[in-house]
């Protein structure tokens, strides 16, 4: 059991657990949608004073904020106590390709640590990947009315055509970035 917990979990464990989390939130009378928390936090920070989109009673969304706090806690617990190694078992072809693109230590740690650190915020590459990337995530998810949890998991589970369209958009953007734009950014 302990050995199972400390190994990376396979997809057929992770997928059902995520479906269970979605069910839990629905059963508690709410819904599964992480990006809504960006809007909630904007509202908590007082954005409602300057923009009516954020002028709502965020206290009613407190359950979702607490859920987010839980995800940070879960990330901490898993990384501190439940991980055997810091190697992410990506495929050999991914490692080869990332090395060719100049990414250091592909598969070591959760992300390329030579890019995702505070010092690299002073570089063009770091600014694009961290700051611009975050901005696009915040802007795009709210524009699309949801992210992977709200559209790809909850929306597709409810067979919503709008969510299918959104997921097609997610992949269009992701493929465009990964195949055509990212190689130039990584070489900066």
């Amino acid at each position, binding site marked *: 059991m302990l050995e199972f*917990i400390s190994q990376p979990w*396979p*997809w057929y*464990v992770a*997928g059902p657990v*995520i*479906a269970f*989390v979605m*069910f*839990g*939130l*629905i*059963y*508690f009378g709410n819904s599964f949608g992480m990006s809504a928390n960006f809007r909630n936090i*904007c509202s908590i920070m007082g*954005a409602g004073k300057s923009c009516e*989109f954020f002028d709502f009673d965020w206290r009613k969304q407190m359950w979702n904020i607490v*859920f*987010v706090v*839980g*995800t940070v806690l*879960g*990330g*901490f*617990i*898993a*990384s501190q106590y*439940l*991980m055997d190694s810091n190697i992410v078992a990506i*495929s050999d072809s*991914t490692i080869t390709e990332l090395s060719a693109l100049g990414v250091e230590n592909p598969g070591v740690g*959760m992300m390329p640590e030579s890019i*995702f*650190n505070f010092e690299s915020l002073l570089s063009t590459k770091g600014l*694009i990947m*961290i700051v*611009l*990337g*975050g901005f*696009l*995530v*915040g*802007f*795009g*998810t*709210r*524009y*699309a009315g949801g*992210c*992977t*949890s709200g559209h790809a998991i909850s929306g597709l*589970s409810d067979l919503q055509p709008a*969510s299918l*369209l*959104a997921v097609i*958009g*997610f992949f269009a*953007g*992701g493929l465009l970035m990964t195949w055509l734009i*990212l190689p130039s950014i990584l070489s900066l």
Partner: protein
Amino acid sequence: MKYFKYLILGTVFGIVLTKAELISWFRIFEMFKFQAFHMYGVIGSAVVLGVIITQYIKRTKMKSMSGDPIEIAPKKFSYARYLIGGTIFGLGWALTGACPGPLFVQVGNGYLVMLVAIGSGLLGTYVYGLLRNKLPH
């Protein structure tokens, strides 16, 4: 205390996102390069089980824990907002290697620089709020 169950559920979600490497930038790159089945298996199995759960809730008119009828709001259909907004998110997803949930879990994993990504995500959401009435939906 009424929020405690959300804390537990969030913690479970944070653990599974970490343990299955779903918060990994490398996994997102690999997914968009179609070099492994892992991410597709996760999303696919979550959706297959999710469809069964959602249909079961609707057909049995299941009540929530507090005894109220469960309402799953349908999403209003249009083209522009889902395709344009979705594509913009996708570009950011491939850059940061994270959708909104994983951004927070990465912070929990000790990648504190992702607080900056969350900060600019908040700014992105705020700018959307300002431009919302001028954008096609």
